């Protein structure tokens, strides 16, 4: 309002960057404290068995360096990430890059197929009345059903008819993806208001022209909102789809294998890798969205 110009530090904290950084650091601190808290019992047992004397510093250092801690410390997870990405050849079964790529490829394939399916379905629903009336209620209703629960069955059934590897996993991602895209796109294609549609009528524009000049451009923000949800849910689908295959490859397989053998550090590093991948994918969609908006002449 009428205040004087804020000082640089105050300005930093008035935006999002400062508070996010402070909260992030607080989370890391909490994580370290939590590691001490959760791993202390194990560590005390270990000291007792070894018969060594220990003080508080030893305890803290010990809880941050266990091989199978209940909660690994952040630096242990980072070290594991470094070891399995940079120091391991990417062709190796132990490389997180290898597993990440397996998950990423089925995520992207499923996403592409799902987005295309969603868009086509939305176009059909907006233009063909019987499609709208018969399909739309089921599409909405199916959103309330825990689709992910079907994943293991889809994998097994598709496996029984000879489909293995990338395709069945992508099928699950496709299935998950097409809902948000179709729903958002139907909303978007209907977004032009009556006035704009009437204008097209005064030009006696065909349905095709109305689609390409009006409906499609108006729907793009809705499409991207759907795509952003879809890409993150596609990743979740790919990870879950890797569970029933007997944990062969992929981030989901790493999670499962880690939980079988109590390799907590491995679980956490797979989890962090999945989170990073999700954040990057969503950021990428956001960047594409901004680029498209800029090409369409929106003000930044």
């Amino acid at each position, binding site marked *: *309002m*009428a*205040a004087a110009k804020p000082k640089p530090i105050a300005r930093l904290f008035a935006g999002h960057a400062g508070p996010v950084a402070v909260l992030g650091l607080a989370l890391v601190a909490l994580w370290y404290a939590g590691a001490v808290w959760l791993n202390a019992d194990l560590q005390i047992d270990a000291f007792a068995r070894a018969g060594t004397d220990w003080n508080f510093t030893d305890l803290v250092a010990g809880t941050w360096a266990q091989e199978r801690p209940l909660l690994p410390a952040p630096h242990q997870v980072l070290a594991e990430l470094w070891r399995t990405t940079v120091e391991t050849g990417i062709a190796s079964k132990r490389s997180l890059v290898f597993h990440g790529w397996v998950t990423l490829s089925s995520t992207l394939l499923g996403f592409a197929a799902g987005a295309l399916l969603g868009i086509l379905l939305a176009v059909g629903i907006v233009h063909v009345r019987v499609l709208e009336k018969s399909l739309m209620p089921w599409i909405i209703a199916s959103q309330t059903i825990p689709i992910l629960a079907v994943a293991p069955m889809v994998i097994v059934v598709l496996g029984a008819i000879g489909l293995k590897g990338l395709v069945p996993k992508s099928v699950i991602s496709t299935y998950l993806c097409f809902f948000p895209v179709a729903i958002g796109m139907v909303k978007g294609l209907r977004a032009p208001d009556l006035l704009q549609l009437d204008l097209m009528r005064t030009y006696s524009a065909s349905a095709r022209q109305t689609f390409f000049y009006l409906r499609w451009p108006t729907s793009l923000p809705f499409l991207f909102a759907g795509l952003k949800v879809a890409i993150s849910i596609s990743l979740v689908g790919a990870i879950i789809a890797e569970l029933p295959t007997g944990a062969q490859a992929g981030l989901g397989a790493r999670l499962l294998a880690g939980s079988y053998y109590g390799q907590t550090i491995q679980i956490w590093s797979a989890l962090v890798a999945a989170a990073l991948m999700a954040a990057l994918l969503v950021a990428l969609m956001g960047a594409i969205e901004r680029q498209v908006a800029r090409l369409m002449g929106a003000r930044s």
Partner: protein
Amino acid sequence: MAAKVVDIAGLSLTFETKDGPVYALSNVDLTIRRGEFVSFIGPSGCGKTTLLRVIADLEKSTGGSIAVNGLSPEEARLQRAYGYVFQAPALYPWRNIERNVTLPLEIMGMPKAERQARAKKYLELVNLGGFERKFPWQLSGGMQQRASIARALSFEPDLLLMDEPFGALDEIVRDHLNEQLLRLWDKTEKTVVFVTHSIPEAVFLSSKIVVMSPRPGRIIDVIETDFPRGRGLDIRETPEFLKIAHRVREGLRAGHAYED
């Protein structure tokens, strides 16, 4: 002479923006006395709404002095000294009309029976008796704005601040509400401060017209009128009315003269 309700001297308000300071109000002097109907008129950007918001403590001045009932605007607000009517009705869609009108009374902790009596009284005053159970979205724009006036009156403040309350309504409804508002003012003897950009509205309603001009926002003329309190819309045809309207228009034009 009647007591001073609003007393402003050398008031200024400057917004700091990226492109340098904006002088929303500059060196404003104004006195509003009990029972007056004062209109602020001027083109957009002249600071008329800002001045009203400073009186209501919705905006803080950056220079000069202002007193409302002899107190600072904040103290006056905490004493609930005024009722405020916005450009939009700002009714809460989840409350029916009665509960919208009783909203300030609930906040001020009035017992229920009294609240309902007040709502009934003021809804009838604005000709909305019988609409208590309706929800805002079930009424027309003019009725909604009348409900918001009833809400402002419900806790019986002596001072009514109105920010272009009829700006969004069509002219026929606006004329009708102008007459009703004038009758209300006559009956209740409240002090009214009214922001508008319509010359006929300002001249018809006011006992004092404050003509304002933009960049910097300032007062360039104050016109007192003495039409009879019980006047009807027909006075708009009289020579005195047209003379005052002409003076307002001249003032607005002078404010613009050295602009373009």
